């Protein structure tokens, strides 16, 4: 390559580089739309969710709403929230099924089985642990806990090593096949910071899901916590979940 050629390439490269710089800016601009409003103070909140197991009818609308709201891949391998169905028999045998992976709802009701003593649905989602193992293991700090207690993933920083997916005891994370980064429930962070409810809570027809703020006075979640006997999932792992369950059967893990 001679000098003239070199200079010509440099000259044509510079505007091209300028053009390339625009891409991250547009991405940032999009981010801003979902960012909290200027007067939002994360330190004044500590978000959580209450799930009343007895109220869940297994309609799966929360799962659909979540997938639509958060661009979760439609294929049945990726869920930010999902519904499990438990069937407990008199001999103690428990069968569990994830109804959210079904392709279509069953056409006929299951025949009555006298040996089944109890059936119920359990909505699952990221527990937004106060002591999150996923955050602890992330090698680059791409997954982090905000001051309002929500665990988020910075998709522009995540390297896709999947260590956080391994570290989550609840199976709440997946690798988004489109972004190739870790993905999970954010409590619809783009909504809650504007005072809206998470999509799953918004659409639940039976109010089985209660979203709230532990720091809020007379908050619905605080009331939920007060009037119900509360359990959390896998308490022995000391992750301190902020998703609280009422009427939870001991069989549920």
């Amino acid at each position, binding site marked *: 390559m001679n000098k003239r050629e070199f200079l010509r390439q440099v000259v044509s490269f510079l505007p091209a580089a300028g053009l390339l710089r625009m891409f991250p800016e547009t991405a940032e601009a999009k981010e801003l739309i979902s960012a909290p409003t200027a007067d939002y103070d994360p330190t004044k909140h500590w978000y959580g969710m209450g799930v009343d197991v007895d109220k869940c009818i297994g309609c799966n609308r929360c799962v659909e709403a979540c997938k639509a709201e958060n661009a979760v891949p439609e294929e049945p391998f990726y869920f930010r929230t999902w519904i499990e169905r438990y069937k407990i028999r008199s001999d103690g045998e428990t069968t569990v099924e*994830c109804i959210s992976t079904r392709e279509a709802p069953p056409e006929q009701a299951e025949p009555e089985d006298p040996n089944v003593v109890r059936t119920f649905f359990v909505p699952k989602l990221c527990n937004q642990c106060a002591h999150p*193992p996923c955050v602890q293991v992330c090698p680059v700090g791409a997954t982090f806990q905000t001051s309002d207690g929500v665990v988020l993933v910075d998709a522009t920083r995540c390297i896709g090593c*999947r260590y956080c997916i391994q570290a989550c005891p609840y*199976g709440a994370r997946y690798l988004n096949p*489109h972004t190739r980064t870790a993905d999970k429930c954010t409590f619809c962070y783009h909504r809650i910071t504007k005072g809206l409810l998470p999509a799953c809570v918004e659409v639940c027809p039976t109010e089985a899901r209660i979203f709230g703020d532990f720091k809020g006075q007379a908050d619905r979640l605080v009331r939920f916590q007060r009037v119900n006997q509360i359990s959390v999932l896998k308490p022995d792992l000391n992750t301190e979940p902020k998703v609280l369950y009422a009427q939870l059967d001991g069989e549920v*893990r």
Partner: protein
Amino acid sequence: MSGAIPQGLYEQLSHQLSQVIGFIYPNEVETQWAILIVVYPYITGIVAGAFILASLVKVFNVVEVQPIYRLALLTALAFMLVAGMPLQLHLGHPERAYEIFFTPQTTSAMAMFGFVYLWYLMGILLIEIWFEYRQQLILMAREAKGLMKGVYSALSLFSKDLSPEALAFDKKASKVITIIGIPSAFLLHGYVGFIFGSVKANPWWGSVLMPIVFLMSAIVSGIAMVMFLYILLSMLRNEKLDMRCLDKIGLFLMVAIIVDFALESLDYIHRIYQSEESIGILTQLVSSKLFTSLVVVQVLFGMLLPLLVIALVRIFRLNEELRKLLYFTSSLLILLGIFAMRWNVVIGGQLYSKSLRGLMAYKMEITGIESLVMALALLALPFVFLTVLFWLLPPRWMKTNAPGTA
């Protein structure tokens, strides 16, 4: 950001979903850490093991093993150069890997691995090899002509000093580095074990014994690899082996297997006796999905059989040819067994649901990034590097008065 996922991935996941037994969390269908993450601890283990074998010569003055000192060092280096590759390749965003070094999160076991790796490669292996070869590189630079003269001079970092004091310093430096190197090698592979052992969400991994089990199995695999290469090279070059050396390596290998076997047994006994919540599903896992790779390949063929063979070789004074053949076969079996051990840890830990209610499947892709072909290529690469290293840094000494002969 939506649309259909890649067809290959869809087919793989659909197949894996159809193979699920019992209940799993829906996100668990995908095997997050696949074959490349099996290759990674396997290769890293060989590095640590080969180095520890080499250090026996320098630190503990085991003179019998002197002939393979350089071979062991170069083996460690060749595998070390490949150790980071499977990690890099399996990332969703390999182009962001540098962030581990620039913005590491100190609470992450994985983040620190980058530094441990670099420290071991730059701080220990390369420096030790340089001191070991400095004298020879100067001599080779003197004799070589043209381009190679420049290469050898550059490799010796343009040092020229062959005075007895300088050579004595080489020896001393090499010893000091080895002394620092042993804990570093322990750290390197113990650390890999910690990456798995610290995952409390996964009872198959989350064991306090994991780092030490990884370390012992690393030593076993490193010694076996050097033994395998030593015999193979002597066959290729049609040279006579130093049987004293080989027998000594055999002894170390036997001891290492016994310790490794004891530790792994302890882990299983402990689990069975404590019989925690996860014991039911883990028993199911071992007796179905992992039966062949764990009970048959890892334990029977990869551990007990070679242990028996090496013990018999030592008890009955067999002739040289037969001993060589048995050592050779044993080293291959052990290498296979340790690979199975890595498989059983990495893949095994992802074949059962964290709900403890079901088992998943893993269907290995044949081609692609996370595939069998890639794994085989990565496993073959150290041997390519080793060939280049042998050519560049001959493991044989130039002068007859020098100690090494391999």
